[in-house]
């Protein structure tokens, strides 16, 4: 019986909403028609006393999503996969154009201004957080 409870608790905690994490100003710039890739930007705050790690991401309406980091090295633009995104305890990290972004690939359909996309973040401890990002102009 004890074991059953333990299993239940584990399952329950894996579905726990990441309450200490907050997301703000989540937006996705509108892209030209037929675009196969979008990027989402936002601020992620960690109100807890523990560092938190994003280990996965998915988005409704897109076949694939990843966390990427763009960089300019020797004048050349490149992009790399971010396997783990650290959010230090008590800090806020900001995803902005030209830096870290949630890359959204292969949309199911075209978007219009004001549409929203639900992005799900998976944390290293199994918790998840859902964020609504709004489609809008870049500037």
């Amino acid at each position, binding site marked *: 019986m004890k074991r059953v409870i333990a299993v239940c608790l584990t399952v329950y905690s894996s579905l726990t909403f990441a309450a200490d994490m907050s997301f703000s100003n989540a937006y996705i*710039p509108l*892209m*030209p*028609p*037929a*675009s*196969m*890739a*979008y*990027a989402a930007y936002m601020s992620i705050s960690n109100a807890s006393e523990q560092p938190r790690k994003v280990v996965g991401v998915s988005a409704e309406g897109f076949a*694939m999503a990843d966390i*990427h980091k*763009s960089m*300019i090295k020797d*004048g*050349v*633009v*490149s*992009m790399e996969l971010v396997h783990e995104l650290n959010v230090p305890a008590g800090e806020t990290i900001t995803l902005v*154009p*030209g830096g870290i*972004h949630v*890359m*959204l*690939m292969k949309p199911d359909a075209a978007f219009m201004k004001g549409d929203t996309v639900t992005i799900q973040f998976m944390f290293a401890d199994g918790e998840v957080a859902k964020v609504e990002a709004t489609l809008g102009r*870049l*500037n």
Partner: protein
Amino acid sequence: MMIKTKNMAATIIAIALYFLSSPAMAQVQGIELDKPELIPTFILSDKAGNTFTDQDLKDQWTILMFGFNSCPDVCPFTLGNLEAAIAETAVRVRPDSVPQVVYISVDPARDRDVVSDYAKYFHPDFLGVTGEQAQIDVLINATDSFYRFMPAKADGSYEVQHSAAVSVVGPDGMLRAKLQPPFDPGKTAEFLARQQIKFRRSALR
């Protein structure tokens, strides 16, 4: 009252001098070539088959930018910033001196049919072109730029690394300057306006 007005005028002159003499701004935003270089013969085209060649560089200012449409972060950011920079430039220069922005996709295999719509999405006057690899490479070499296809992932998609800078070509078809990101609209407009003043002065000589 009179004194106040005078002070105001002095301040305006001081600001103008600051902008004209600030070397830091020129270094950060744009690099002027010591010796302008002629862009050699090339031929690219838009979706409809309209050509864009070295002849189209004549009699207007042109900003050449390299990218690829599947670039979700830096390319749209650059095009958005260039749109703002051009709007800012239009306020400062004569209408016929507003540079033509030309977006060149280095990824014709994926972008040939959508390159023009992509560029026009950011501004109706922006031109989007691509072409044969060899023709793209003519412009890449002439502007000291770079691109490289990265290995394809399992789903067949691939990234393209490319130069971040854009190239400024004068109405004589010569490469005159390079601009570096982040393309601050005000500073970019200021830099372009100064390039044009310099060009007109050298033409009078």
